[in-house]
């Protein structure tokens, strides 16, 4: 595919991610922080987010699998997840966290498990989307083009 086409796809895809609420303004902020002295900032931060989130989701699964669930511990994990998703602009993941924490307060394992299910889904979706976005970026660069900045 020719560079111009790739760039247009990239811009459209990015716009759709914002429109559909997968990403919010914070993600744009991250893009603003990327420059020549820090050329891979976004990819680096997002990779950290992926690693941390997967670890946390595992921990959550294990914690909710216990006979005696430690809701304080569960809440602490969700708090972490809320923080990191918020920092990278993963809006839909972030939005799952508040209801999850309410369920922790109510100490309801049932509802917590449902929240966990939902947050896993949202996480996988946004991970997929971001990976697609990064692949598009790589294709553009490989074809000799520049990554368009969304305004």
């Amino acid at each position, binding site marked *: 595919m020719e560079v111009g086409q790739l760039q247009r796809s990239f811009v459209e895809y990015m716009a759709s991610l914002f429109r559909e609420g997968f990403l919010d303004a*914070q993600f744009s*902020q*991250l893009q*603003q*922080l990327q*420059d020549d002295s*820090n050329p891979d*900032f976004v990819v*680096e*931060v997002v990779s*950290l*987010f992926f690693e*941390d989130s997967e670890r946390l989701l595992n921990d959550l699964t294990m914690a909710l699998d216990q006979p005696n669930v430690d809701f304080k511990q569960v809440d*602490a994990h969700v*708090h*972490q997840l*809320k*923080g*990191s998703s*918020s*920092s*990278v602009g993963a809006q839909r993941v972030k939005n799952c966290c508040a209801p999850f924490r309410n369920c922790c307060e109510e100490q309801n394992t049932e509802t917590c498990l449902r929240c966990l299910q939902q947050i896993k889904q949202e996480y996988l979706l946004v991970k997929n989307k971001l990976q697609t976005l990064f692949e598009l970026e790589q294709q553009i660069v490989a074809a000799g083009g520049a990554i368009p900045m969304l305004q």
Partner: protein
Amino acid sequence: MNYWELKLAVFVSDKVPEIVMGDPGRFRQVITNLVNNSVKFTLKGHIFVQVHLAEQKKDGDKNDTCLNGGSESIISSSAFHFKTLSGYETADSQNTWNTFKHIIADNGLYYESATKVVNDDLSRDVTVMVSVEDTGIGIPLKTQDRVFTPFMQADSSTSRKYGGTGIGLSISKCLVELMGGHISFISRPKIGSTFSFSVSFLRCEKHAVGDLKKSHSDDLPTSFKGLNAIIVDDKPVRAAVTGYHLKRLGIRAEVVSSIKRAAATLGKNGSVVSKKLDMILVEKDLWISEDVDLNLHFPDINQNGHMYKLPKMILLATNITNTEHEKAKAVGFSVIMKPLRASMLAACLQQLIGIGNKSRGKDMCNGSPSLRGLLCGMKILVVDDNRVNRRVAAGALKKFGAEVECAESGKAALALLQLPHNFDACFMDIQMPEMDGFEATRRIRELESIANEQQNGVLNCDGGTKRHMWHMPILAMTADVIHATLEKCLKCGMDGYVSKPFEEESLYEAVSKFFESKPNSDK
């Protein structure tokens, strides 16, 4: 060999018109060639570039080329007390000083920003003189006559030791002569060389430069115009350079040759100078040798019930050790490193004085100018147990020019904040396991009050003097900005909060609050 002590400075006389017509590329090429040579061959002392108009040399016939390199006059002062930039002798010290004396008198360090320099010379040509003076190894007497000959270097070992082809100066000579000028030098082996050249430019009518690219000076902030400064420096050439940079920002400067004298000027009750003084710039070597505490000489804050704004204290240094830096900060100085550049000076002053472009426009590329002004050069500690948050917070602060270190827990933060430390501020996450942000802040304040008591205790024995108290600004980073949290933040000793992730506006609000009341506040 201490390279750090090599001083580099530039001084452009007021009388040189702002815009002239000529060949900027070639002009730059010659200057670059001369400065490069100086840099190669100078290991101590200074490299000083001066630009002035040919007419300003009032000392008779010294315009002629002087290729003999030798100087008959015997200078009787000791090695470091020449009236030059670094104090070291130069190839033509006496002459250069005579010329420079006139130039700075012409310029006047009392700078009236409103009045334009009246130019009664209406000829179309203007002859600009540039001199590059260094205190390098100099040129051996017997090779001075072939300096401008292509491919000749001073001796056969030069290219091995210093590199180069030996063609630069001959090219420079050709270029200068093609531009209607003249190049010459004076050099004394082991003392230094001063190369000078003149170029004829055409004067330029202001209205003729409509589509000329804006010069760099137009990017300087105008918010410092009319401020008053005192420069404390016993080296007139060096002081003149500092004054020149301040002048470019519209700041009037008076030069005083010792801290004692500065103190005397300040001490006068009701003195006009001390009432309107915005800043004092002290050269580090003076501060080290004199043992005068300026803090003692600032008039009382509440004299006659008037709120008096203390002038900012700035220490100028070419190099500084950590210990010296700490000592300076403890007494209330902010350190600005040389060589001075007007733009850098403006950024540092913005963070000290808190003035500057308050435009909140969408200038996101480098961070808003105002935040850059506040945070540039500041050393900040970010404490958060979540590494994604740490990385993003650090990235944002670095974008505004701050130097950032991260800690992943309250405990780690405490280890880094043992006094004395050189952090300017701390951004602290509240909810952390083991030790939360409130607890960590409480402990930091405890450490500070112990250190402050100790200082006071010692000082009281000596008869008591006012000293700078340890108080590092700590801002809470929180996603939940509810009133109750803010109360708790303030109770445990925090100075404020910012929302997480950072939002430029609220970050600016929070940071500008406590940076404005720095550095002489006793919280």
